[in-house]
C-alpha cells in the first residue's frame, strides 16, 4: 500500500447536459411512460403493514396515491407495536416466512408520479386546483416573465374557422351573412381571397370525399373543395382540388358536377376545376379574380401563386343575391334563403333582417347539405381585380389602409366589401337570446356611445363558465365581418347556437350534460369547435380592423407591461396601475366579469342573522331573501328555474375571488420526468380526439423555445408566435389557455418531451510510479516473481485490486475496485484513471 497525493494536475473535470426523451401516454387503456418515485424498484421489498389500503389512499380516491410523509409516519409507528404480522415475530417462528410472504410489496416501490391534469374552477368551492391555477397565474408567471416574455393569462388572437362533418353532428352548420342592400355584391370586377387547409379526409379508403363548399353567393360565385387525384398509403384522400362555379353555374349543386368533365353546356358552362392540387393538411392561399376589363374578360384561380386561367366574355358575373354562406352550399331558392334572416331571428340573434315575417325556412338540412371539411381563415372579397403584387401581399400580410407599392389603389381596405379574419372582438350582436344559464336567456341592449352592440364581450360565455363550470365559446365574437371596422356585421350561426333547456322537461343538468349530452349538444359541440387556433405560419395577420374599431382600448386587448404589478381581481379600479399597452394579437383572460362587491367576504345579504351552523343549502332553502339565491345562480336545483340565474353574479368567483379565465387546462409534470428543466423546443402534447368532435379534430401543441405553446398540426410552416398556452420549463408547468381547446386531453394525454440533466464528471489520474506500490501489507502476501523466467527472478509481484481516495485527514471518501487485479512489479509504471459521475 502506498499513498500518492493527487494534486490538481492529476484532476480533470467536465460537464455534460443530457437530454433524455420521454413519452407519456395516459388513457382509459392505461398509462405508459409514468415515472416511479423510487428509481430502483423491486417487489422483493415488503412493507410491514399494508399502508396503501388504509385511509390514506381512500381519502385520496386513487389507487396510485401515496403520501410519503404519512407512510413514513405509519412505518415508524408500526415499528413500535406488535401487530401480529411480521413485526413481533422471531425468525424461528414457523409462521414468520408465511407472514413475510403475505406482506404487501412496499408502497414506496409501487408509488408512481403521474402527470396531473388540472381543470380549475369547475365547482363552487375553493379547491387545491384553484390554488394551483392562481399560483401559476400570479406567482410563477410573474417570476418567469423575464425569461418567457409572452407568459400571462391571455392567448393569441389568431384563429381559423373550422368546418367538419360527422354523422352525429348537424351538417347544415355554416356562417350566413345577410347581403342587405347588396353591400356584398361586387359591381363587376372582384377578387376573392382566403387561406385553406384541407385537414380532413374520407376516413375510410374508397369512401367518397364529398364536395364541401367554402364560399357561396347564389347565382354569382361558389368555391368548393373536392377530392384530388392522390391517396396516401392508407388509401385515404391526400390531395384536393378547388371547384369554381361562376354566375348562373353557381346554382348547380357541387355534388352533382362530374369532376372528370366539369364544364358542359349552359347553365353549367362556367365551371372550372383547379389544375393545381392542394395537399392534405397544408396551408394554401387561394385567390379568385375576374374583371371585364382585364385581358379581354379573363380571370384566374390562383393557388399558392400558380394560376389556372379562364375566360368569360361578360360584363359582369355577379347578380343580386341574398347572402354569403361560408362553409356550406345553399341549395334552395331566394325566397327561402331570405327567411333565414327573418324578423324573428333578427330579434333573437341580432342579425340583419331581410324579410318582415318571423317564419323560419323549411328544409334547412336539405338546403344546406354540402358542408365543408377544412379550416379556412382570412376570407376577403374585394370589389376590385387585384394584381399579382397585391395578391402576393394579402397572401402573407392581410390587408390594411396603407398604400402598397406596386398598387394603383390608395389602399386595399377601401375596396374590401367582405372580411372575416376571424378576429376576436369584444362585441356581439344585440339579441334577445343571450344564454346565461342552461335554463335562461337574457336580453342585451346596445350601448349608444360609442354605438356598440354588447352581448357577451369575452371569448366564452361567462355565465356558464363562472356559475356552472361549463364552456361555451362566444362564436358571435369571432365570426363578424370586419370590412367596416366600426360596424361589424354578424352572421346567422346556422346550427351553431344551441338553445336553453326547459327545467320541467330536461330536469337539472350537470355542466357536461348540457354541453355534451343535451337536446342541443350537437349544435353546441360544433359551435365550440368552429374557432380553432391557427397554425398557418405562412401568414402574419394585420390587426388593422381592431385598431380602427371602437374596441381599440378594450380591456381585452390591454396587457400589463409591469411584471411586478399583478392583475388584481378587484375590478376595473385597479387597472389604473397598468401601463396602457394594447396588443390586439392577444386576448386577455383577466377580469372577464365585473368583480361584484357582493363577492367580498362578509357582504352577503341575508334576511336573518348569520348562523354559522347553516350551510349554503340551508340558506338557499330557508332564507328566501338571501342573495345566495342569485349568487349561486344556475348551479343547483334551487336556482335552476328561469328567475333564479343572474347575469352578473356568479357562484365560482364568489368562492374563489377570482374572475380570470378558468377555461384552461393545466398539466403539472413532476421533476422525475425531466430533471432540471424541460428542454427548449422539445415539448409536444397531442389530443387525438378533442371533446365533442367525434374523433375528427386532432390538436397538437408544441413549445417554441420561449415558453409559448403553439398549434403544430399542419405540414407547412407553423405560426410559432401564436400563443395558445404556456410552458414553464423549469417548473414542469404547462398551461393550455386557449378556451377553444375544449377539455384538452381529457380522454387521452399524449406528451413527449426531452428533459435536461447536468452530468458532472471528475477524472482522477493516479500515477503508479515504478518506485511506488511495491509492497503489500496483506497478511497473505507472498513475495514471488511475475514469471519463472530468469530475467524476472529479481522482481516481486503485487496485484493491485483496489484504490482508495482519502481526504486531507486520511479518511476514505471513495473506493474503486478493479474488475480484475493489475500486476505491478518494480519495473512497471502506469496511470490509473478513476472516473466519477455525479
Amino acid at each position, binding site marked *: 500500500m502506498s499513498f500518492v497525493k493527487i494534486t490538481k494536475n492529476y484532476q480533470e473535470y467536465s460537464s455534460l447536459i443530457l437530454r433524455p426523451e420521454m413519452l407519456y401516454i395516459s388513457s382509459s387503456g392505461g398509462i405508459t411512460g409514468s415515472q416511479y418515485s423510487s428509481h430502483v424498484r423491486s417487489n*422483493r421489498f415488503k412493507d410491514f403493514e399494508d399502508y396503501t389500503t388504509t385511509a390514506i389512499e381512500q381519502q385520496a380516491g386513487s389507487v396510485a396515491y401515496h403520501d410519503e410523509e404519512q407512510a413514513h409516519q405509519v412505518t415508524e409507528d408500526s415499528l413500535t407495536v406488535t401487530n401480529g404480522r411480521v413485526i413481533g415475530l422471531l425468525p424461528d417462528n414457523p409462521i*414468520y*416466512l408465511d407472514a*413475510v410472504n403475505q406482506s404487501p410489496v*412496499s408502497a414506496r416501490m409501487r408509488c408512481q408520479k403521474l402527470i396531473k391534469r388540472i381543470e380549475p374552477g369547475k365547482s363552487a368551492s375553493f379547491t387545491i386546483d384553484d390554488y394551483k391555477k392562481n399560483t401559476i397565474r400570479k406567482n410563477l408567471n410573474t417570476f418567469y416573465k423575464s425569461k418567457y416574455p409572452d407568459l400571462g393569462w391571455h392567448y393569441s388572437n389568431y384563429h381559423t374557422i373550422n368546418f367538419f362533418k360527422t354523422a352525429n353532428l348537424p351538417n347544415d352548420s355554416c356562417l350566413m351573412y345577410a347581403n342587405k342592400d347588396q353591400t356584398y355584391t361586387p359591381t363587376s370586377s372582384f377578387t376573392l381571397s382566403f387561406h385553406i387547409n384541407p385537414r380532413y379526409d374520407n376516413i375510410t379508403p374508397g369512401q367518397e370525399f364529398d364536395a364541401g363548399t367554402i364560399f357561396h353567393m347564389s347565382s354569382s360565385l361558389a368555391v368548393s373543395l373536392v377530392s384530388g387525384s392522390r391517396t396516401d398509403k392508407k388509401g385515404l384522400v391526400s390531395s384536393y382540388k378547388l371547384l369554381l362555379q361562376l354566375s348562373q353555374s353557381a346554382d348547380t349543386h357541387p355534388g352533382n358536377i362530374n369532376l372528370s368533365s366539369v364544364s358542359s353546356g349552359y347553365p353549367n358552362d362556367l365551371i372550372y376545376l383547379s389544375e393545381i392540387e392542394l395537399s392534405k393538411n397544408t396551408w394554401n392561399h387561394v385567390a379568385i379574380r375576374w374583371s371585364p376589363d382585364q385581358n379581354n374578360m379573363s380571370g384566374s384561380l390562383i393557388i399558392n401563386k400558380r394560376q389556372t386561367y379562364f375566360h368569360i366574355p361578360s360584363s359582369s358575373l355577379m347578380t343580386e343575391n341574398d347572402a354569403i354562406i361560408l362553409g356550406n352550399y345553399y341549395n334552395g331558392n331566394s325566397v327561402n334563403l331570405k327567411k333565414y334572416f327573418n324578423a324573428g331571428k333578427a330579434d333573437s340573434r341580432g342579425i340583419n333582417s331581410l324579410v318582415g315575417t318571423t317564419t323560419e325556412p323549411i328544409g334547412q338540412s336539405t338546403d344546406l347539405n354540402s358542408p365543408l371539411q377544412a379550416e379556412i381563415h382570412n376570407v376577403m372579397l374585394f370589389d376590385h381585380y387585384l394584381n399579382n403584387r397585391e395578391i402576393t401581399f394579402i397572401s402573407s400580410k392581410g390587408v390594411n389602409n396603407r398604400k402598397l407599392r406596386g398598387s394603383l389603389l390608395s389602399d386595399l381596405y377601401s375596396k374590401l366589401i367582405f372580411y372575416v379574419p376571424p378576429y376576436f372582438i369584444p362585441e356581439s350582436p344585440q339579441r334577445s337570446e343571450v344564454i346565461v344559464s342552461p335554463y335562461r336567456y337574457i336580453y342585451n341592449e346596445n350601448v349608444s356611445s360609442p354605438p356598440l352592440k354588447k352581448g357577451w364581450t369575452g371569448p366564452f360565455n361567462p355565465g356558464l363558465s363562472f356559475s356552472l363550470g361549463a364552456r361555451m365559446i362566444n362564436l358571435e365574437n369571432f365570426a363578424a365581418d370586419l370590412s367596416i371596422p366600426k360596424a361589424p356585421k354578424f352572421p346567422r350561426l346556422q346550427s351553431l347556437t344551441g338553445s336553453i333547456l326547459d327545467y320541467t322537461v330536461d330536469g337539472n343538468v350537470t355542466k357536461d350534460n348540457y354541453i355534451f349530452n343535451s337536446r342541443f349538444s350537437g349544435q353546441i359541440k360544433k359551435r365550440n369547435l368552429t374557432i380553432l387556433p391557427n397554425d398557418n405560419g405562412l401568414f402574419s395577420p394585420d390587426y388593422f380592423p381592431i385598431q380602427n374599431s371602437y374596441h381599440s382600448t378594450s380591456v381585452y386587448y390591454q396587457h400589463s407591461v409591469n411584471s*411586478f404589478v*399583478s392583475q388584481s381581481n*378587484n375590478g376595473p379600479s385597479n387597472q389604473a396601475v397598468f401601463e396602457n399597452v394594447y396588443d390586439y394579437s392577444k386576448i386577455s383572460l383577466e377580469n372577464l366579469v365585473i368583480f361584484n362587491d357582493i363577492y367580498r367576504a362578509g357582504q352577503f345579504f341575508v334576511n336573518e342573522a348569520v348562523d354559522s351552523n347553516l350551510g349554503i343549502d340551508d340558506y338557499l332553502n330557508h332564507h328566501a331573501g338571501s342573495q345566495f339565491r342569485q349568487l349561486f345562480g344556475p348551479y343547483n336545483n334551487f336556482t335552476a328555474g328561469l328567475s333564479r340565474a343572474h347575469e352578473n353574479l356568479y357562484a365560482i368567483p364568489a368562492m374563489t375571488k377570482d374572475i380570470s379565465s378558468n377555461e384552461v387546462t393545466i398539466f403539472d409534470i413532476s421533476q422525475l420526468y425531466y430533471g432540471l428543466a424541460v428542454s427548449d423546443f422539445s415539448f409536444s402534447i397531442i389530443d387525438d380526439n378533442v371533446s365533442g368532435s367525434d374523433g375528427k379534430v386532432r390538436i397538437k401543441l408544441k413549445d417554441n423555445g420561449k415558453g409559448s405553446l403553439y398549434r403544430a398540426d399542419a405540414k407547412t410552416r407553423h405560426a410559432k408566435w401564436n400563443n395558445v398556452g404556456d410552458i414553464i420549463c423549469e417548473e414542469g408547468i404547462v398551461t393550455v389557455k386557449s378556451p377553444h381547446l375544449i377539455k384538452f386531453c381529457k380522454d387521452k394525454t399524449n406528451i413527449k418531451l426531452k428533459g435536461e440533466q447536468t452530468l458532472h464528471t471528475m477524472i482522477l489520474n493516479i500515477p503508479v510510479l515504478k518506485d511506488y506500490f511495491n509492497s503489500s501489507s496483506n497478511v497473505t502476501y507472498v513475495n514471488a516473481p511475475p514469471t519463472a523466467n530468469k530475467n524476472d527472478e529479481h522482481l516481486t509481484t503485487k496485484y493491485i485490486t483496489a484504490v482508495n481516495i482519502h481526504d486531507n485527514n486520511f479518511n476514505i471518501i471513495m473506493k474503486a475496485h478493479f474488475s480484475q487485479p493489475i500486476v505491478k512489479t518494480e519495473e512497471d509504471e502506469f496511470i490509473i484513471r478513476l472516473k466519477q459521475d455525479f
Partner: protein
Amino acid sequence: MATFKTISSADIKTTRSVLNQLVDFIEEDVSGSSTRKTFQVFVTGTNSDTGVTSSLYNTVFDQNYQLQTANELFDITVGLFSGSNTVADANTGVDINGKLLFTSQSLMMREKVNIYRQYAQLLLGDANQEFKAPFGSSQATDTINEALFINFKRLFVRDGIKRETFAMRFFQSASAAERVEDAAIHALGTDNIFRGTISGSVIFTDVGSAVNIERSQTGGSVGNLVNSSNTSETTGLLFYQQGIAILDLAKITSGSQKMSGSIAAVGNSNSSIILGRSGQGNPKAKFIPDFLVSGSIDDIVNHVSSVRFGSGSQTFLTFQNNTQINSTLIFCRATADEFNYSSNPTYTDSEGRIVVIDESEQGIQKSFSFITTVGLYDANEELLAVAKLSRPIEKNDEKDLTMRVRLDF
C-alpha cells in the same frame, strides 16, 4: 422574503436513526433459469470429450435478468476447505508451483478451494483459515468443510442485515434416488439431481444472535445460523455488515444421500458422468463427497438452487435490513419582533401599494407576514438548502415561532 438571522451552534443538533426494510426472496427466483444467471468463464476439456463450461457463481434476480428493470438479489456458489477430507480424498498431490492436483473423476476442485479461500480472506482475514460454526469455536467438528456461500446484494442489505430477522427455508434431502440404491423410498428410474423436492424442509435462522454478538476482525459482526427446530444445532454463519451467509452443506443436507443423474464431465466421449445407476459411472454416488467433487460449480449450484429451496411462490429466504439515517436538526427561531415584515413585491395593501410602517406610527401600525419558506445559507450567504412549509404560517409580534428544519442524508 429575505430576513436573515444567524443560527448558533446550540440550535443545530445531529441525530442518527435506523430505518428497516423487509426483504422477501421467493422460491421461483432462485429455482428458475430465467432469473438465475450463469457466467460461464470456466472451460476445460480433453481430446476425447466436448468439454465442460461452468460459472464460478450464479446471480439470482427478482425477475427475468434480460429485463432492464431486473435487480440482482444475491450471488450463490460453493467452496471446499482445503484441509477437508473431501479435498484430501480427491487430491493426488501438488505440483512444483504449489498447485493442487486431483483425480480425473473430479471437476473444478481448485476453483472450489480457491473460492473458499477467497471468502476466508475477506471475512476472516486469512485465506488459509477455515470457517467454524458456531463462530469462534475451537472444535474440529464445527469446521465448515463444504460451504454454500450466499452474497446478498447491497441494494437489499443496505447498511447491514438486522440481527434476528434472517430465516431460510431449505430442503435437507433431495428426492429419492433410483430403487437400486434407495429401494425402500422411491419408484425406479428417477434422477434426483435436478428433480424438485416437495417435503422435508427446515428453517435456518439467526435467532439468538442478538444475545451472542460475535465479531470478525475483517468481516464485521457475525451471527450463527441455527436450525429453528433445534437451535442448539448450528449450521452456518451470517456476516451482517457484509451481507454474506455461509452454510455448512454437511449439516444442512443429508450428505450421505444417494445422488442419481447425469452431470458434465471430461475424459469420456459422453462428456458426462452417470451417478447412482447400477452398472454405470458411479452407482453409489453420495451428495458428499461424490457430487461435490465430481460436479461442476454450475451443476452443484443448479442442484441446490432448483431442488433445495423449492420452486413455488412461497418465501424461501427473508431478512430485514438496516439503513442508517443521519439527521441534522436546525432550530430556526423567530422571536416576537422578528420576521413580521416581507420584502416580497406582492406584499401590498388593498390599494396595491407596498406595505410600509410610517416612522411615527410604529406603535399603531403593525405588520404581519406569512412565512412559507426557510432558506439556509452558509457564512458567505450562499443558499445551501431550502425548506418549504406545508402551509404558510402567520407571524406577527404576538407570536414566537420555532421552525425545526430536518436534513436527512
